[in-house]
């Protein structure tokens, strides 16, 4: 694959770090200053299964609908200023997502100015039995078990695809590119390599593009959001600026944000994001390249600007990661609040009483977990001895394959208000809700069996 080098610098702005992120962010990124690309990451591991459920109910669904509103809010930026959009909003139904975008453009009278590129081929669900039959076991990367163990409960199966088909869509003139389960980092790396003309074997540069993608894939989490370093003094989070990558042809790049926005971009804020969800830093594996995070060099380069250089990469493996979602039983979590005096003791007593009742009912659970929020829920025994707390939240959760057992559990919490320990409140939310668990099964598959397809219209 070749891409004509057109630029010395390309600016990619992040406008969404997950489905549910700030609705204002995409528009603010497009209107707040000059950018070339807007990158929107909508997909977390569990998102695909939620979208699959929606598609089963309605064949026109199964994509991140927030994306339609986001595009609507930035149409002038796309059609008049030439901002291009890359998003994995397609979920399990990229064609339907593309159709919704075309409809929005049509209504706004700019249909001819919006060229939608659609990347498909990541969805392995229709091919799953064929793949298993031909010897692809799709073993769980964590446990080693073959997928056959949960085959009948699988809801979705998607290969993580890389930057190549996105580049193809851009080369064919798409100004809105919609993918399904592409890697988060490819959404940033693809426009960078396309605009700067990087070749498919320029491993260090491709790795730099991946690191750029990792830094901005969680939106404001690198620009002051959820930043522990000096958190009290991070300015104006209400008006937080989402990050922008300014990538140069030589493989170096800056992270910055629009002038006049809040938050902060510093070596510390960027370092916190770099270590987020980190595994072995020597091998950050993607479909395009393996990046070595121990080679990343960061330097402050002015207010809200960090320069990144030195990144080394090497060829990728011959596998793609596959994200499989399967039904794994049911769960429910309920809470009550106990007040001073002796709040923790009362909460402990409530736990004891409730557990005895569940046992007397003969209910058995795969898992039963009690936490005392305000005392030990997040740091457990590390939190040390609690002082006489003003209040403690008693939080109990259960998990089981047996839905009836979970249903019955949800009826046992409220009675404690009148027939358990005293000074109890905080039950206004009603009975806990029974939730079906959709669990995640990570696996690997040979790259050559996954064929992506690009359409631009």
């Amino acid at each position, binding site marked *: 694959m070749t891409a004509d080098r057109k630029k010395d610098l390309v600016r990619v702005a992040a406008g969404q770090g997950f489905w549910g992120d700030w609705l204002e962010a995409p528009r603010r990124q497009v209107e707040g200053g000059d950018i070339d690309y807007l990158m929107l990451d909508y997909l977390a591991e569990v998102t695909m299964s939620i979208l699959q459920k929606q598609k089963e109910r309605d064949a026109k669904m199964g994509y991140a609908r927030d994306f339609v509103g986001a595009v609507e809010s930035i149409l002038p930026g796309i059609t008049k200023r030439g901002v291009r959009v890359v998003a994995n909003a397609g979920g399990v139904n990229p064609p339907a997502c593309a159709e919704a975008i075309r409809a929005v453009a049509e209504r706004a009278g700019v249909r001819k100015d919006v060229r939608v590129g659609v990347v498909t081929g990541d969805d392995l669900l229709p091919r799953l039995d064929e793949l298993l039959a031909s010897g692809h076991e799709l073993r769980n990367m964590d446990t080693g078990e073959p997928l056959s163990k949960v085959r009948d409960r699988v809801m979705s199966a998607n290969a993580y695809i890389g930057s190549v088909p996105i580049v193809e869509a851009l080369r064919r003139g798409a100004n809105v590119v919609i993918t399904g389960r592409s890697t988060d980092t490819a959404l940033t790396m693809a426009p960078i390599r396309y605009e700067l003309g990087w070749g498919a074997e320029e491993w260090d540069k491709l790795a730099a593009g991946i690191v750029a993608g990792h830094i901005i894939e969680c939106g404001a989490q690198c620009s002051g959001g959820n930043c522990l370093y000096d958190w009290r003094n991070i300015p104006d989070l209400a008006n937080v600026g989402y990050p922008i990558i300014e990538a140069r042809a030589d493989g170096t790049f800056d992270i910055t944000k629009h002038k006049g926005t809040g938050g902060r971009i510093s070596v510390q804020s960027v370092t916190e994001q770099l270590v987020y969800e980190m595994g072995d830093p020597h091998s950050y594996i993607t479909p395009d390249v393996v990046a070595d*995070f121990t080679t990343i060099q960061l330097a402050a380069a002015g207010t809200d600007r960090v320069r990144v250089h030195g990144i080394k990469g090497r060829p990728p493996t011959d596998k793609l990661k596959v994200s499989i979602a399967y039904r794994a039983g049911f769960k429910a979590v309920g809470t009550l609040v106990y007040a001073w005096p002796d709040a923790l003791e009362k909460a402990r007593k409530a736990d004891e009483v409730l557990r005895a009742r569940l046992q007397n009912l003969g209910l058995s659970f795969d898992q039963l977990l009690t936490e005392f929020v305000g005392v030990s829920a997040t740091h457990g025994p590390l939190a040390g001895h609690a002082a006489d707390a003003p209040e403690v939240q008693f939080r109990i959760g259960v998990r089981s394959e047996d839905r009836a057992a979970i249903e019955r559990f949800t009826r046992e919490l409220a009675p404690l208000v009148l027939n358990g320990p005293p000074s109890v409140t905080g039950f206004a939310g009603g009975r806990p809700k029974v939730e079906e*668990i959709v669990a995640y099964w990570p696996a690997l598959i040979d790259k050559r069996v996954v064929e992506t397809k690009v359409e631009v219209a």
Partner: protein
Amino acid sequence: MRVQLVDIAHARSGDKGDTANVGIIALRPEWYPLLEKQLTRDRVREHFRGVITGDVERYELPNLKALNFLLHGALDGGGTLSLKTDAQGKVFSTALLRMIIDVPDAEARQLSLPAART
């Protein structure tokens, strides 16, 4: 001198399945070697005893003045299976910052380390 990590480092954590990671970053570059020396795999495993069920791995990132720890069996099954408040391991970061280390007085003076407040 007793020094608490919260005064000499910052951190962020996340999840991968039933594993939580904690990236811990020296507040000053000259404090990184101290972290590398003190925060051994064994020391961190001991810190999280009774909190996690699996082993601990450590990776060094001197370029970022950071260490990355993988805490296996930290999330009650992980992801959607977990019943924990912190099912995605978001605050294991500050749980590690609770750790108190002993630093020889001369070294502590030389590095201008703050003494533990607790």
